[in-house]
């Protein structure tokens, strides 16, 4: 498996930091930069680098309120108005597929979070691209109906998006299987990181990406316009997404999706997924477990039998 250009991706993500912090993190050894998963900035604290071994402070650094504002300004290209909707959901997608998580004092109107005042901490998650990761699960995703629809489960930061991206790439490229046309509803730009109409991350040669719009709209647009054989979507969270997926599944399209959770039982507790599972939409569940750099993939059918 190849964690392609991990240090370079880290460096690009670090370009969002103010100069004094950027110089420090870009001065870290290449190996450490390649393994870094997140940069965590908390007001009045040192900058922390999250690696599979845990969070390590960068001695001699101290994050100020101005630093946090600068990161947000750079992440939004001096155009906060373009990311307000994302701020309301607690994160901003950054060119390159990175994700900036936000924390601060909420401004609430009508029971809804409308903005954040006084940022208190930020988490910059570096996009990961590990080619060949899909090989660990791909042969087990075939059933009687051919390629089954797949739901990937793991706790936050477990590697769902990384696995999904490589599955998309492998299916689209036809690695160890006939190539397929894949449609990706990439609402937050984390799967393909499209910039200027071209994906910055490798999602394969037969992949069409609909980015920047809600997942349900993206799915239906792809379904109507691009004649996909496989539809992929990251982090299903809204009833509208579920209803779009049900519609797509009814058209004979294979679905690839991810969700937060650790077991099949976790899904049963959530009404959103209960319907999808009850209707047998997903023929395969991939549960990612593991700590540090170690990842284990358990593949089961929709009823929990190992595959």
């Amino acid at each position, binding site marked *: 498996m190849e964690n392609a250009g991990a240090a370079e991706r880290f460096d690009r993500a670090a370009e969002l930091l103010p100069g004094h912090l950027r110089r420090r993190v870009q001065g870290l050894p290449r190996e450490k930069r390649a393994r870094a998963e997140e940069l965590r900035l908390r007001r009045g604290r040192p900058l922390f680098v999250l690696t599979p071994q845990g969070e390590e402070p960068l001695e001699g650094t101290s994050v100020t309120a101005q630093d946090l504002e600068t990161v947000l300004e750079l992440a*939004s*290209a*001096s*155009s906060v108005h373009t990311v307000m909707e994302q701020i309301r959901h607690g994160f901003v997608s950054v060119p390159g597929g990175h994700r900036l998580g936000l924390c601060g004092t909420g401004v609430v109107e009508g029971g809804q979070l409308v*903005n954040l005042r006084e940022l208190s901490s930020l988490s910059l998650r570096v996009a990961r691209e590990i080619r060949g990761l899909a090989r660990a699960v791909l042969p087990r995703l075939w059933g009687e109906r051919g390629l089954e629809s797949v739901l990937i489960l793991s706790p936050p930061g477990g590697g769902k998006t990384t696995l999904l991206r490589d599955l998309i790439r492998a299916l689209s490229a036809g690695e160890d299987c006939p190539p397929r046309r894949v449609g990706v509803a990439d609402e937050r730009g984390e799967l393909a990181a499209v910039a200027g109409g071209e994906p910055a991350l490798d999602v394969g040669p037969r992949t069409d990406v609909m980015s920047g719009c809600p997942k349900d709209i993206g799915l239906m647009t792809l379904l109507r316009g691009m004649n996909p054989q496989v539809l992929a979507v990251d982090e299903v969270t809204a009833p509208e997404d579920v209803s779009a997926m049900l519609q797509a599944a009814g058209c004979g399209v294979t679905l690839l999706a991810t969700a937060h959770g650790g077991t099949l039982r976790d899904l049963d507790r959530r009404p959103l997924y209960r319907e999808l599972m009850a209707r047998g939409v997903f023929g395969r569940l991939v549960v990612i477990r593991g700590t540090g750099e170690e990842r284990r993939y358990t593949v089961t059918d929709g009823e929990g039998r190992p595959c």
Partner: protein
Amino acid sequence: MLKLLGALCVMVVSLWCGAQAVGGLRRRVRALEELHAGLVWLEEELTFRLTPLPQLLERLGQDRRGEAGRFFQEVDRLLRLDPEGGLHQSWRRAMVRHLTLLKAEERQALLEVGQTLGRYDARTQGQTLARCARRLAALRDEAQGEAQRLGKVYTALSAAGGAMVILVLI
């Protein structure tokens, strides 16, 4: 003959000085007009299309003329050069370089826009832009009146001043 030539030179220089002063007044009016038009367009684009500011500034730099065009070009250039400094800093520095014709009140109105742009939601930015555009429109009308009034005064003064110098020297 020599005296006639000298008198002619004095009169030409004097009228040129007057024309320069009148030109300055007119350029200020034009700058305010262009800035006003730019801010109105910026407000519409920000509010309805949520376009990122670097794209809007680039377009404004191409579309607007004179001092205002150079000002928007400079904001765009400085922002690309030093994104970490933030839009407000690029805006302020570009104002110092390219909007020297404006009066303190006009500069103050524009500085407030620079403090808001890119840092708030589209509605807040739109409100600030609309307020500034209204203020600039009023100031442009005042500047227009001033240019007409003072324009005549400067022209007359330059002609009279030239004539007086000629009389004194002869």
